[in-house]
């Protein structure tokens, strides 16, 4: 028997594999395929204080080994979440983590205070890295002062495990990571999507209604992995790695680079079972290599 459980501050994960926000709905769609209690955690779809329609169609474009999305945080608002969705999902036997968004610090606080009351939401992910919204979002995540500010304000109102989700669209991601660590973040997750663009050469029009969108999938994995490695070496808090993870080998690379846990996003669109396959694959790897604890992999890169 190998031990797959990890702890991110007070967040106890039965295994280090979570779904990524915006790629697994509220867990219900995955539950159509399998028992979601097998997952380490479900990162719920990004939530804002009030209903957001998101961006206009078309919202996605396929790219080489990846995709662009411009969903723009479509959601029905935190109150709807609490009254309609939370009751349906609160008995999943896994960690539910809310991805918190806002256009202003006040909006972030508003959502945070409300979800702080939910027993079964065991952690929150502060999204300061969404490239698909006009206000807030990534703007908070690309400069140290604003990242510090929003983290500090949220820390004041949130008691449980606070994960800050970092943007890769920066010159030095370690600076931002250190800044939010200093303000009390319990963990950082990275990366969110890269700002990208796609054009239809025949029609000479952008493929997304918003012109630019967020790039995800295997294409970004090498950059994401580098950032996770840099940040793991720069901060003391646990790091959660993501970006293009498609299989157990990919996940293990992020763990070796220093991540304590991983998230699976775009891969779910290709096959919703991939998170479970990754859990099995990691367990199998540990056995094959005669490790008995996942902690032996974390940061185990031999340089």
């Amino acid at each position: 028997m190998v031990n797959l459980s990890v702890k991110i501050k007070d967040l106890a994960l039965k295994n280090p594999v979570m779904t990524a926000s915006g790629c697994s709905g509220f867990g219900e769609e995955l539950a159509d395929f399998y028992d979601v209690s097998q997952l380490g955690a479900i990162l719920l779809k990004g939530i804002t204080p009030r209903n957001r329609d998101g961006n206009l169609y078309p919202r996605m474009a396929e790219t080489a080994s990846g995709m662009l999305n411009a969903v723009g945080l479509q959601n029905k608002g935190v109150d709807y979440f609490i009254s309609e969705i939370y009751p349906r999902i609160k008995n999943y036997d896994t960690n539910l983590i809310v991805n918190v968004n806002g256009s202003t610090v006040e909006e972030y606080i508003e959502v945070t205070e409300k979800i702080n009351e939910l027993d079964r939401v065991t952690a929150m992910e502060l999204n300061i890295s969404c490239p698909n919204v006009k206000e807030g979002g990534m703007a908070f995540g690309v400069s140290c002062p604003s990242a510090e500010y929003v983290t500090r304000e949220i820390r004041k109102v949130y008691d449980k495990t606070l994960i800050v989700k970092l943007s890769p669209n920066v010159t030095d991601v370690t600076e931002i990571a250190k800044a939010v660590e200093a303000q009390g973040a319990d963990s950082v997750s990275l990366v969110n999507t890269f700002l990208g663009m796609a054009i239809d050469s025949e029609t000479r029009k952008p493929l997304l209604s918003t012109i630019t969108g967020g790039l995800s999938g295997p294409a970004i994995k090498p950059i994401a992995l580098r950032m996770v490695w840099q940040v793991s070496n720069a901060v003391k808090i646990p790091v959660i790695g993501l970006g293009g993870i498609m299989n157990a080998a990919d996940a293990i690379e992020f763990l070796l680079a220093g991540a304590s846990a991983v998230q699976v996003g775009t891969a779910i669109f290709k096959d919703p079972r991939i998170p479970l396959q990754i859990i099995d694959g990691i367990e199998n790897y540990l056995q094959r290599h005669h490790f008995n604890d996942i902690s032996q992999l974390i940061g185990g890169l031999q340089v």
Partner: protein
Amino acid sequence: MRKIVENFTVISNEACNLTNFHITLQSDHPLAEVFPGQFTNIEIPDNKDVFLRRPFSIFEVNNENRTISVLVKVLGRGSLTLSEVRTGSRLSLIYPLGKGFTLPAPDERILAVGGGSGVAPVLHLVRYAEANPGSADVILGAKSETEHLNAIDSYGKYAGLHYTTDDGTMGVKGLVTDHPLFGDLARYDRIYACGPLPMMKAVAREAFRAGVSCEVSLENLMACGFGVCLCCIEPTVKGNLCVCTEGPVFNINDLKW
């Protein structure tokens, strides 16, 4: 609703004409129940330029043989690769996806209109509803005779089959809405349409004018196909709805056309 990811075996791949292929796929297990208008998201094998799956309406279902089939129109790189798939190879399918058409009551008269790759769900519907030529008409539209699908004559037992072509080489010359049946829509209780957007909009306009209930099946671009990505949304009177889970079939009254 229970959904499945499963490898099917290609048991036949027949060219219907130059750009349409009828691919029949067999499951190793009993099939899940499939309703007309539902679709499957297929992993395209072997193509370096294709990353995501591609959605296709489920055309024929045979529970005894554990087979489903799809009609694939070659439009780009993914559908091209799929059209070249060989008998015996395995394809990963996610199914059944989406909500199907509202089934007609036994005594309702229906008109089903299909254009291009949109013929699959409407033919599935008339067969599934066990319609008959007395109560059901199907209009199939295409650019030219060469683009019409062969081997659908057997559907003559479920519906009156009518054709239109842009160039007049088969059936009535013109668009589907130029067909004489559109002259008296009021005799139908329900109209169903699937095909290119302009065609569906034209049908919707006529149905609306005639005051007949009409459902259309949309083909918005999809990433996941099962409701987690929110890429496929359609603006409706109920807000932005997911085409893959709350559609692909919509009543035209709900759409903002």
